[in-house]
């Protein structure tokens, strides 16, 4: 782990552990028995973890850079489940051992602060259920995002009200400012993410200037900055959250890889496959449409490996766009380091950007290996699913010294990672992008 990564990890750990440490240090109220106090400790811990979730998704570029924002979102997901489990521990101990103290369930008869706690628990449980089972519940992604933000904010405020209302552990004079500061700090984070950032985007609009079809039904959306200089500096293979429409406040943003190379100027291209709720209508986007971008993010870049002797790319379907961006950049820079791309698709027609990849071979040292699940009759290339033997057969002798960049459906990246590790590529040399988290 780099020093920067360690710094952000320790800061995050401190953020979560601080409330509990403050409870432990300083003036403490009289004890109420081990299980009661353990339950309270769990409640505070869960609250701190839930609140810190806002920090993980606030998209502070400096903090995300050492890890990759996709991994941070993955982390956000696991920690949310952990925090809910801890919160349920808090509730279960009280329910089993101190049911009388919880009072009636009916909100009209119950103490308001206990009802607030129940609302918080319900909201956080719903956040997890709607996120883990979004597709099975048939929740449209845009609606899910509204629901997610609303439930998280209501749950957080209800939890703050619950803790403040009960007050037993936080009423000590030294602890009140801490809780007030922490609450305002997290509200500030929500404000920054949902209001501050979109506000900044509003003054930096983009315009769709082209929307062209590619093989396999994919589309390339081309955007130009309007009234500003563009995205600034970014690395090939990074991505941005794209909002199409009149306002960046509407939570209708979606992450897409910037398929163009930074060397090609401020005009950006996004390769999009119509697979989901939002992307299925991407073909209808007309030139002239307004757009907003939040980015760049991501670590899927050759620029993170300046000393590498060459690169291995494994892409599946539209997951080829980050590899394409890196290859385009290598060609534009005159980078002659060898690169090999395993491009996996269900069939030949699905291989978007195959013509451009073929053309790139003339401008750089690129070996292109198409892998088709259902190849045409006269196909002489690789067929079936990518596996260890196929990689061994096709990889060059120096492969173990090359960084491997994987992007595609999770089963493909998992299989490629396992096979590459088995063949001797050090795990630290393998990068992958995680998509479809919800």
């Amino acid at each position, binding site marked *: 782990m780099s020093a920067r*990564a360690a710094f952000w*990890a320790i800061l995050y*750990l401190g953020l*979560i*552990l601080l409330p*509990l*440490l403050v*409870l*432990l240090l300083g003036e*403490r109220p*009289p*004890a109420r*028995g*081990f*299980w009661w*106090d*353990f339950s*309270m*400790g*769990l409640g*505070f*811990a869960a609250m*701190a*973890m839930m609140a810190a979730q806002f920090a993980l998704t606030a998209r502070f570029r400096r903090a995300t850079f050492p*890890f*990759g924002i996709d*991994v941070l979102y*993955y*982390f956000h997901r*696991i*920690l949310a489940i*952990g*925090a809910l*489990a*801890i919160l349920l*521990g808090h509730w279960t101990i009280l329910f089993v051992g101190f049911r009388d103290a919880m009072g009636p369930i009916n909100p009209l008869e119950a103490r308001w602060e206990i009802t607030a706690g129940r609302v918080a628990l319900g909201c956080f449980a719903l956040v997890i259920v709607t996120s883990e089972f979004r597709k099975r519940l048939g929740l449209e992604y845009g609606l899910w995002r509204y629901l997610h933000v609303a439930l998280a904010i209501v749950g957080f405020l209800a939890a703050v009200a619950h803790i403040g209302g009960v007050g037993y552990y936080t009423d000590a004079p030294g602890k009140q400012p801490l809780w007030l500061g922490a609450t305002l700090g997290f509200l500030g984070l929500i404000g920054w993410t949902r209001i501050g950032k979109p506000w900044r985007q509003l003054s930096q609009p983009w315009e769709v200037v082209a929307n062209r079809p590619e093989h396999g039904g994919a589309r390339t959306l081309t955007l130009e900055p309007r009234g500003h200089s563009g995205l600034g500096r970014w690395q090939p293979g990074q991505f941005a959250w794209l909002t199409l429409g009149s306002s960046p406040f509407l939570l209708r943003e979606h992450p897409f890889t910037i398929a163009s190379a930074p060397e090609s100027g401020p005009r950006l291209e996004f390769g999009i496959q119509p697979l989901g709720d939002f992307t299925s209508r991407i073909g209808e986007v007309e030139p002239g449409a307004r757009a907003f971008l939040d980015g760049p993010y991501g670590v899927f870049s050759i620029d993170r490996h300046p000393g590498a002797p060459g690169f291995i790319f494994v892409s599946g379907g539209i997951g080829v766009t980050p590899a394409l961006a890196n290859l385009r950049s290598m060609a534009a820079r005159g980078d002659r380091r060898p690169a090999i791309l395993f491009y996996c698709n269900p069939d030949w027609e699905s291989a978007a950007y195959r013509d451009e990849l073929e053309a790139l071979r003339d401008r750089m040292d690129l070996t292109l290996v198409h892998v088709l699940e259902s190849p045409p009759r006269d196909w002489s290339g690789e067929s079936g699913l990518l596996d260890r033997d196929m990689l061994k057969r096709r990889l060059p002798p120096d492969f173990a010294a090359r960084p491997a960049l994987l992007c595609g459906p999770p089963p493909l990246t998992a299989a490629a*990672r396992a096979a590459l590790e088995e063949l001797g590529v050090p*795990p630290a040399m*393998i990068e*992958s992008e*995680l998509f479809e988290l919800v």
Partner: protein
Amino acid sequence: MRPAIARLVAAGLIAAVILLALLFAVVQNRDAADLDVGGVENVVKRGAAPRA
């Protein structure tokens, strides 16, 4: 960072948080246990000769 490492870090963090909650309960009740030993008489004794 690999997803497996992210899972490991998250598991470590969750374990640390639960341990701290446990520590909170133990420390909180250890003080109470001190007071309980000897009952009121002991508290009175301590009041007479406070610990340094």
